[in-house]
C-alpha cells in the first residue's frame, strides 16, 4: 500500500470521529499567533523590570551575572511559554463546551495531526538552538566564576547546627560574622561539622552545599562596601531558620585593622590580607 493510499484510508477511518469532535477554526492559528505575541511582550517586560524588585542588591560580579542570567533565560523562554499559554487560553475559550446548559456530552478528542515536516523541523530546530544557547551561556558563566584571580584570599566556612563560623587561614582568626575586604576574590572553602547545610551569602550571588567530611569550593569577588546576609539554604534541623548571620565588606585597610584586633600577627596579616596568599 502506497503512502497516499494509507493516508486516504486513515482519513476515511477518522472521518466519522472528526465529525463529532471539535470544529477547526480557520482563524485559530492567526489568533494564537496574536495571543502569543502579546504574551511574549508581557513576558519580556516582566523579565526586564521584575528582577530589580525581586533580587537582593548586588555586591559582586557573580550576583550581577546571576541576575543577568535570570533576565536572559526568561526572555529566551518567553516566546515558548507564551505559545503554550496562547494555545491553552484559545482552546479553553474557543472550544469551551457548556455541557450543563444543553445536556450535551463533551466532544471526543480530535484526530491526531500527522505529516507536517515543516512544523516538526521548526519544533526540533528551535528546541536545539534554545538548549544549545542555554548550555553555552551556563558554561561560560560557570567558567567565569571558577576563574582564579591572583589576589584571591581564602576563607574557611564551617556550618554546624545551627551556626556558621569563618576562619582566615594562617591568621588564627575565627569569627561568627563574616568580614571581607573590598575588591578581592574570596575563595570559600566550605564544609560541615554534622549534616548538610547550604552556604549562601545572599548578595554575593553564590551558593554551595556544606557537606560533612568534604571541602567544597566557591568564589565571589567583592565589589561594594556594606553588609550582606549569610543564610543556610538547606533545611538542616530544628533551628535551621535561625542559621543566619551578617557579613560585611570593608576596605582592605579596615580588613587588616580588624584582623589585628582579633589577635592576628602583623606578619600573618601581611601574608594573608595584603599579599593575597
Amino acid at each position: 500500500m502506497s503512502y497516499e493510499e494509507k493516508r486516504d484510508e486513515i482519513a476515511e477511518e477518522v472521518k466519522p470521529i472528526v465529525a463529532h469532535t471539535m470544529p477547526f477554526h480557520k482563524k485559530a492559528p492567526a489568533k494564537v499567533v496574536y495571543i502569543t505575541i502579546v504574551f511574549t511582550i508581557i513576558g519580556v517586560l516582566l523579565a526586564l523590570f521584575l528582577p530589580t524588585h525581586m533580587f537582593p542588591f548586588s555586591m559582586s560580579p557573580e550576583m550581577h551575572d546571576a541576575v543577568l542570567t535570570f533576565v536572559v533565560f526568561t526572555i529566551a523562554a518567553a516566546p515558548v511559554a507564551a505559545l503554550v499559554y496562547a494555545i491553552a487560553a484559545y482552546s479553553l475559550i474557543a472550544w469551551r463546551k457548556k455541557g450543563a446548559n444543553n445536556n450535551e456530552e463533551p466532544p471526543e478528542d480530535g484526530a491526531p495531526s500527522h505529516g507536517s515536516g515543516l512544523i516538526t523541523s521548526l519544533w526540533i530546530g528551535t528546541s536545539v538552538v534554545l538548549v544549545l544557547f542555554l548550555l553555552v551561556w551556563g558554561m561560560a558563566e560557570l567558567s567565569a566564576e571558577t576563574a582564579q584571580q591572583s589576589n584571591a584570599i581564602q576563607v574557611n566556612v564551617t556550618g554546624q547546627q545551627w551556626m556558621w563560623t569563618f576562619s582566615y587561614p594562617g591568621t588564627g582568626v575565627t569569627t561568627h560574622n563574616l568580614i571581607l575586604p573590598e575588591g578581592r576574590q574570596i575563595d570559600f572553602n566550605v564544609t560541615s561539622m554534622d549534616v548538610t547545610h547550604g552556604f549562601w551569602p545572599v548578595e554575593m550571588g553564590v551558593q554551595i552545599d556544606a557537606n560533612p567530611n568534604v571541602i567544597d569550593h566557591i568564589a565571589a569577588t567583592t565589589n561594594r562596601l556594606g553588609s550582606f546576609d549569610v543564610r543556610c539554604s538547606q533545611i538542616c534541623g530544628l533551628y535551621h531558620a535561625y542559621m543566619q548571620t551578617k557579613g560585611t565588606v570593608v576596605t582592605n585597610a579596615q580588613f587588616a585593622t580588624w584582623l589585628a584586633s582579633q589577635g592576628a600577627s602583623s606578619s600573618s596579616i601581611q601574608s594573608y590580607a595584603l599579599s593575597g596568599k
Partner: protein
Amino acid sequence: MKKFVWAVVTVLVGAVLIAAIGLGFHDQQYSSPYGTEVAKSVGMITVNGKQYQHVVLNLVTEPSAQGTTSNGQIIHPGGNPSWPAYAVTNEYQIPANAVVTVKWSQYDSGGVVNNPYFAKPRGTIGGIERVNGKPVTGVAADNIAHTFTLRGEPGVDPRFFLSVPGPISKLGDNAENNKGGQLVQFSFISGKPGLYVWNCEFPCGLSVGGFGAVMSSYGYMSGHMHVV
C-alpha cells in the same frame, strides 16, 4: 449543585487537615509550666566608663530532664528522663542594653565539642567566663557539657552574639542532678529589644552528629530570651 457542594466540602476538609498539621507542629513548641524567668535587678554597674543597669540571671543544666532541681521542682514534667535539660524553665527575660550577669550551675556530663570555636566564651565582657570563681578564656574542647549560645531572631540585632561553654560535672560520666556541679559565671551587655533564641552547641543528643533527639526537640536545650 451536588458537584459544587462536594467541591466546597473537599476544600474545607483540606483546610482543616492543613490547620491540624500546623497546630500539631505549633504544639511541639514546648512551654515550660514555670513560665518566664525574669532576671533580677541588682542596681547599676559601670563598664568601660559607661553606666548600665545590672541584672542577674540564674541558669541550671541537669542530666535528667525528669529529675528535680535543688529546689525540688520537676524540670520537665513528662519529659524524657535520659535527656539533659536547662532548668527550671526555657524562657528568660532580661532588659535591653543592660549588663547581665549569668550564674550557671552545670551538673551534666559531656565530652568533645565538635567545633572548637564554641570552647571559648564569645561576646562576654572581657572575653572571659569564671569557672568556680576562676577567670578563664576557654574550656578544654574535650571537657564541655553544654554551651549557652544566644542570638537574635532573624532581623533582631544581627550583631549580637553570645556563646559560653560549660565544663562537665565534677562527677564526669556519673553525673547526677544537683551533684558535682560547676559554677560558671559570665557577664554580657544585652542587645536591642526583641525576641532572641538560645540553644546548646554541644552535640549532647543522639544520632545526626549528636544533634538528634534532645537537640532536635523543643524545651530541653533551647528556648527564648525576651529582651525588653
